[in-house]
């Protein structure tokens, strides 16, 4: 039981980080940026390539810088931030006043385009990611705990906490919240709305890239399509937690992660149907609480 819970918290922590990305961008733009699943992927590849001595990019040999692990993770985060910024500038900014449906379609297109770019650069098959050396697994209460799970959960909590504090207590955070509440009023108050939106994208992308790096280290691979399913689940987590709320998104991620693992462990044939069960829980929770776990009821402006 303990083991299942620890595993669920680690998986949930990754979903939580990615869910925070979806949630904050939804907050300021009112749209779902599907491309975070691909930022997740580019973050993982950024760290992988930066840590490798030699690798292949677009079929050609490429001498990697073979950076130490911590520096490679930094590079991965920067790559994720750049991809996020470019997506916002090139794809979404021209559509700032377009109907929400146009943005949604664009988001889907961007996501597919980035996945195709990933396939072109890194191939269609999975690339192995060496496991980080974090020492041996240890036993607590009869459960075998993997150090990486502890690291993932801690990093996820700290990063989400830091992000939440940034939005809550800093001037840029205040600007983000103002933009989220009412973009036009924020502009009238002298807030550079475009800059705020770009900043939100960059910060969200860093969270998504971090999630991707942790994911690739835990499961030992990176692949062009790796962000799709986690992205879907993180989106579910964000909605579940009350989209727009940072703590809500993270809690939503944990709920999805734990549900999945508990389903795999205790429901007969659960391992094969874990996704069905996790998404079923979403439907159930939203039926009971349409605004999500920590969300506030939105008043539709007509």
């Amino acid at each position: 039981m303990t083991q299942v819970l620890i595993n669920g918290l680690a998986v949930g922590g990754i979903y939580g980080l990615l869910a925070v990305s979806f949630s904050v961008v939804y907050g300021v733009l009112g749209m779902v940026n599907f491309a975070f699943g691909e930022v997740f992927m580019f973050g993982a590849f950024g760290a992988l390539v930066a840590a490798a001595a030699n690798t292949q990019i677009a079929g050609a040999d490429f001498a990697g810088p073979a950076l130490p692990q911590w520096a490679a993770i930094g590079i991965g985060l920067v790559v994720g931030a750049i991809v996020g910024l470019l997506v916002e500038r090139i794809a979404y900014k021209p559509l700032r006043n377009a109907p929400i449906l146009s943005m949604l379609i664009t988001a889907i297109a961007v996501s597919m385009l980035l996945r195709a770019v990933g396939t072109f650069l890194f191939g269609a098959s999975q690339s192995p990611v060496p496991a980080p050396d974090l020492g041996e697994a240890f036993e607590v209460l009869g459960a075998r705990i993997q150090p990486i799970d502890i690291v993932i959960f801690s990093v996820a909590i700290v990063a989400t906490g830091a992000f939440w504090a940034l939005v809550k207590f800093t001037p840029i955070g205040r600007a983000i919240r103002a933009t989220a509440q009412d973009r036009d009023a924020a502009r009238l108050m002298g807030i550079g709305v475009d800059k705020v939106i770009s900043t939100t994208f960059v910060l969200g992308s860093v969270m998504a890239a971090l999630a991707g790096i942790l994911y690739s280290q835990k499961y030992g691979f990176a692949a062009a399509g790796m962000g799709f399913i986690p992205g879907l689940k993180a989106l579910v987590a964000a909605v579940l937690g009350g989209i727009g709320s940072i703590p809500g998104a993270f809690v939503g991620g944990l709920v999805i992660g734990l549900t999945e693992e508990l389903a795999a462990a205790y429901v007969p044939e659960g391992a094969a149907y874990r996704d069905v069960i996790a998404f079923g829980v979403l439907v159930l929770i939203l039926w009971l609480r349409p605004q999500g776990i920590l969300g506030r009821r939105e008043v539709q402006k007509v």
Partner: protein
Amino acid sequence: MIRRTTTAASLAAVAALSLTLAACSSSASSDSGSGDAEGEIALGYTATLTGDFASYGLEMREGVDLAVEELNDGGGIDGRQVKIVSADDEGSPANGPVVAQQFCDDTAIAAVLGYSFSSVALSALPVYDSCGLPIVASAVTSPELTGASDVFFRDVFTDAYQGAEMGTHVADGGVEKVAVLYQQDDYGQGVAEAFSTAFEEAGGEVTSSQAYQLGAVDFGTIVNTALADDPEAIFIGGFYTEAAKIATQLRSSGSELPIYGTDGAVSPDLVSLGGDAVEGMTVYSAFSAAAGTDASSAFIDAFTAKFDKEPSSWAALAYDATMVVAEAITEAGSTDRAAVAEALASIDGFGGVTGDITFDDGGDRLGELIFLQVDGGEFVAAAE
């Protein structure tokens, strides 16, 4: 959900084995022409030669070409030269009957080789039945083809046959309790069921049997469940991407149990993704260039000399299929289709590069699998 996944793209290669079909939009290419040249024996060759799943068809063709070259260099079959009439089925079941009719109408053709997809072969069978033209396929493994036609034979083992052989092999190795994990699709279910049945018949006990989805990455929980009943070994009925992760997560949970896999796990990527965790893992295959036997070494040398690469198992099976047909024509003493089909049915213990070949009443191959083991990052013949 709005978006469609393409995550399976990396697995497309192996997925083709489980006979999923993608819509291939590619132009037909066929160098067909009637093989009426006096004295020449024509063999039909059809497979998916264009599109995403072309690699099997092209690799099979290499095996066929090598066999034809060797036959002709050795004076042909009964002194008659052999030529190939090729047609692309584009991976589409709708093209199955079209190609079959084309071969049926070409009276010079004595037998047909190839087929990438079971669905295409299935759709073509009624036409072959009507003209009595025998087929020796070398890549299609669907159980639906078993006994589907009197003129259909295949020298590739079915998934069920291979799974059962593995079950017996594991039981013979002294293992009494196995936990089974399998991919939830026709392929995984088929091999896992056959494995479990054979293993239990041999006196073993399957402690648990759990399905997982293709593309799953987290096996921590199902590995725990599998280990809870104290099995002596783990059997994985699935492809290399998941097998590598299961092995990794099994080892990091502290278990040193032996791992058994299937032909779906035979890929260099198993080792690159699984690393030390897959070391010692046992899998099976119909053919392996790395684990060459006496029978196959001459073939491997000749193939490498001609194509400058190691033969795949598809090339080897197609080579054998061609040689089996040549043997049957020699036995029959003519290219009469009915006589060739009869000779094929009575092939018994033909020594191929993939081992001895015999067909059972359903046209399926009987014979011995090669068991391979990962040793130092390479697949080598498993120690008995």
